[in-house]
């Protein structure tokens, strides 16, 4: 008897569901069709702006996002994405479940543009002028601005002023001082710069550039030219040779045992006098109680400028977002304001891109300005999708010469590997 009752109940549910099959058809369009212009209706309609950011930035963004939401009568959701942000965004965008606004690094632009995932951001001339030239150059791809910059980050030489009171004029001076300190038993390592077994192209790039090496030729418009990979060029071979001289069989300044996991903590623990790293290291360095100074990475004697890569953290407007007008408003007109930049700096101390915000932040925290100076002549990380083919072979070639491998062979192999993967 009881089962019979259950059956009836289930059948009723099914019948209801079946009517829902037919019934919801006219219901849906009417819900979106009538747009009564009132704030209450907006909320009910799901007038919602969705922002994706990495964990560091979510907390800082929330109050501003909410303020923007109240001003415009929409609800704003800031969602934390912690892994593979770019790929997650691209996949979700394709599925139609992506955000309206994405926060990320400018070197994603090339790939996001070729996937049609982001839209140009139209900044006024006045807005553009508020940023340093390098930040605007970084977010410009193919002549079009694709993001609103909010933080500029690059690596610099951070030194322990107790062990090394003077900023080294050249890389040679630095290595000499580092070796002397090591021999005196004051430090364990000459230099803390991550190499690891697979190399670290990002951190070694200033030294590579100082040695005369380069990755790409330049197009007529000054952008990196993917058709001209220069890793195997004679100049680059010479630069790899310099890395070899600094490596394990040479000065011992570059070592594969120094990795991304231990290089900052080693410096913070006083195990080396020099650290090449970015603003993200400062938290640990301060915790370690080290007295430090930040200067540009020096070049070799008679070398080329030691230009670091410059990364520009930016806001992007998703082209498949549901609320593009609002997203444009938020990115172009709201986050380019200096209070937002300052709050983001407070949450995660990466130098603000807005010149005015940087000046205000710099008054209380000189580190931001020093990092900015170190990156002034830096090279924006190439945003072209072809750069993805460069990172790994470059890193492996670096690790190979650091271990004492032949520079010409390593450079040639890297060039070949990059050429063959760009061909496909």
């Amino acid at each position, binding site marked *: 008897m009881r089962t019979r009752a*259950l059956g009836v109940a*289930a059948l009723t549910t*099914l019948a209801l*569901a*079946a009517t*829902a*099959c037919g019934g*919801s*058809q006219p219901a*849906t369009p009417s819900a979106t069709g009538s*747009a009564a*212009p009132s*704030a209450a209706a*907006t909320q009910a309609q799901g*007038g919602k702006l969705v922002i994706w950011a990495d964990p560091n930035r979510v907390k800082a963004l929330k109050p501003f996002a909410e303020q923007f939401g109240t001003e*415009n*009568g*929409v609800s704003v959701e800031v969602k934390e994405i912690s892994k593979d942000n770019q*790929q997650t965004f*691209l996949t979700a965008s*394709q599925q139609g479940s992506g955000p309206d606004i994405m926060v990320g690094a400018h070197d994603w632009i*090339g790939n996001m*543009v*070729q*996937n*049609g995932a982001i839209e*140009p951001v*139209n900044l*006024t001339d006045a807005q553009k002028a508020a940023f340093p030239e390098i930040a605007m150059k970084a977010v410009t791809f193919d002549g*079009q601005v694709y993001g609103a910059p909010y933080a500029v980050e690059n690596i610099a030489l951070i030194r322990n002023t107790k062990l090394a009171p003077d900023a080294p004029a050249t890389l040679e001076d630095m290595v000499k001082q580092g070796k002397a300190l090591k021999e005196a038993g004051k430090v364990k390592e000459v230099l803390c710069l991550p190499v690891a*077994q*697979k190399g670290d192209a990002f951190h070694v790039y200033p030294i590579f550039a100082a040695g005369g090496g380069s990755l790409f030729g330049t197009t007529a418009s000054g952008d990196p030219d993917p058709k001209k990979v220069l890793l195997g060029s004679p100049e680059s071979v010479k630069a790899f040779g310099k890395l070899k001289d600094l490596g394990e069989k040479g000065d011992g300044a570059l*070592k*594969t*045992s*120094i*990795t991304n996991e*231990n290089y900052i903590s*080693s410096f913070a623990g006083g195990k080396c006098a020099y650290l090449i790293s970015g603003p993200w290291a400062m938290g640990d360095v301060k915790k370690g109680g080290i007295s430090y100074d930040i200067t540009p990475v020096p070049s070799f004697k008679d070398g080329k400028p030691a230009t670091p890569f410059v990364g520009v953290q930016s806001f992007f407007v998703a*082209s498949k977002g549901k*609320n*593009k*007008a*609002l997203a*444009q408003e938020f990115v*172009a007109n709201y986050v380019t304001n200096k209070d937002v930049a300052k709050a983001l700096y407070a949450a995660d101390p990466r130098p603000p891109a807005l010149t005015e915000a940087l000046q205000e932040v710099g008054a209380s925290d000189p580190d931001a300005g020093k990092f900015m100076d170190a990156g002034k002549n830096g090279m924006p990380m190439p945003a072209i*999708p072809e750069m*993805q*083919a460069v990172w*790994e*072979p470059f890193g492996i070639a670096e690790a*190979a010469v650091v271990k004492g491998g*032949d520079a010409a*062979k*390593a450079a*040639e192999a890297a060039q070949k*590997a*990059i050429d063959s*993967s760009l061909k*496909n």
Partner: protein
Amino acid sequence: MSSPPAVDVREARGAHAPPKPRREITTAFLVSRIAVLAVAAALLLYALPPLVAARSWPAVVILCAATAAIAYLYLTRRFVPAKYLIPGTVFLIAFQVFPVLYTVSTAFTNFGDGHRGDKRAAITAIESGSVRQAPGSPEYSLTAALKGEALVFLLVDPATKQVQAGDAAGLTPVPGAQVGVTGKVLRAPGYTVLTAPQAAARGQDVTALSVPTPGGLIKANGLSRAVEGRATLVYDARCDCVQGEGDRWAADEGQGYFVNAKGQHLAQGWQVNVGLSNFARVVTDPTISRYFAGVFGWNVVFALASVGTTFALGMAVALALHHPRMRGTKAYRIALILPYAMPSFAMLLVWRDMFNRDFGLINQLFGVDVDWMGQPSTARFAVVLVNLWLGFPYMFLVTTGALQAIPRELTEAASIDGATPWNGFRRVTLPLLLVALTPLLISSFAFNFNNFNAIALTSEGGPFPAESPQVGATDLLITYTFRLAFGTGGAQFGFAAAISVFIFAIVAIISAVTFRRTRRQEEVYA
């Protein structure tokens, strides 16, 4: 006196054809039935609205039909075997058959970075990405307004403060409008000015409206600004090409790009069917074929060594703890399970750091200076060692279980017959163990053959010789091809899918051969 008739009744009953026993309704039956129906109904309610919104009617029909069929199946008393088979079949289709079919079908496309969407999306992206602000045109400040029911833009030229109304027909001057300090129009005769929330609510319309001008189109840029721009690249359906900037890019359906006469393509492409070219690339790519034999050889060695060492250690420990005179086995067992209980992801990273030459625990502990991950032989030893540590608790667990199923009398009988403990193990225990464990060993082999994490998180495939940066000494097929498909040229899902099909075939063949051999072995011992 009453017992004989009772017997009679029973016998009489038995003599008749037994009435079909009414199946008893147990609680478990009831609960599971409710659960299945509830899940089916929940899925229907969850999936229906988006499908209806997307107007994919065939999917709606299939969904409703499937739900009705499931409801019927679990409400009727018939089809008992189907009641048990259906859930398993549904899961099999959802989690095995569908992913396999999807992977195989992806292998025939160029799906990947640059080719994620369809052609229409690529054209939209090309056109909207090519919009340039008209030279010398003002940066209008924008106020959304209504004329009657239609949305119009009230545009203020910041230089002249002149107000114009723009709609789909073009620009018309608005005399007598009142402009605020920020450039917003406060009041305009004949128009209803929208507040920010009201404009935001019409966000879609604001994005959609474009005001034609002699030089191009005025589009909203957010909700407070508008600019006059012109798409420099335009798609022309007649020639199926994109024109502009003094050049012409014709659609190439073979590679999913717009290509010009010089063979250059526009960045945005679309997904097309490329037939067998992904498979052809796997076979013909010199960077794959040149290193395949070496990588495959090490891959087999790695999988065999992982299974062999974990099984040997796991079994040895299980045998030791199985000994009747062993005391405190519970404490030992808990300690031995620990590596298995810890997240392997984190443990692999910890092990990697322990092998560091200058900062690692291992070199410091033993007072040596070995560049573990820097030389092929030591790196290979290290990854097998790490995998041993991670994998032996599993082997220990399953061996313990299998040992308890072997009667102690057998080994006792063997020792009474004069067998040494080694012979007793060799000729009695081990064969019986293997009957139970061989399928597990084979699946462990298949798992380790594709053990991406064990390599990617420790040695990352390295060390890499200077002259071939694409293949490292500890690279497995899966880590090596992952690097080819995702590391260097962005994500190439189609190519990756073709590689997975090949690896699947390799593992399937190895497993099939071993299972066949096991069957023979089982026939001997069973």
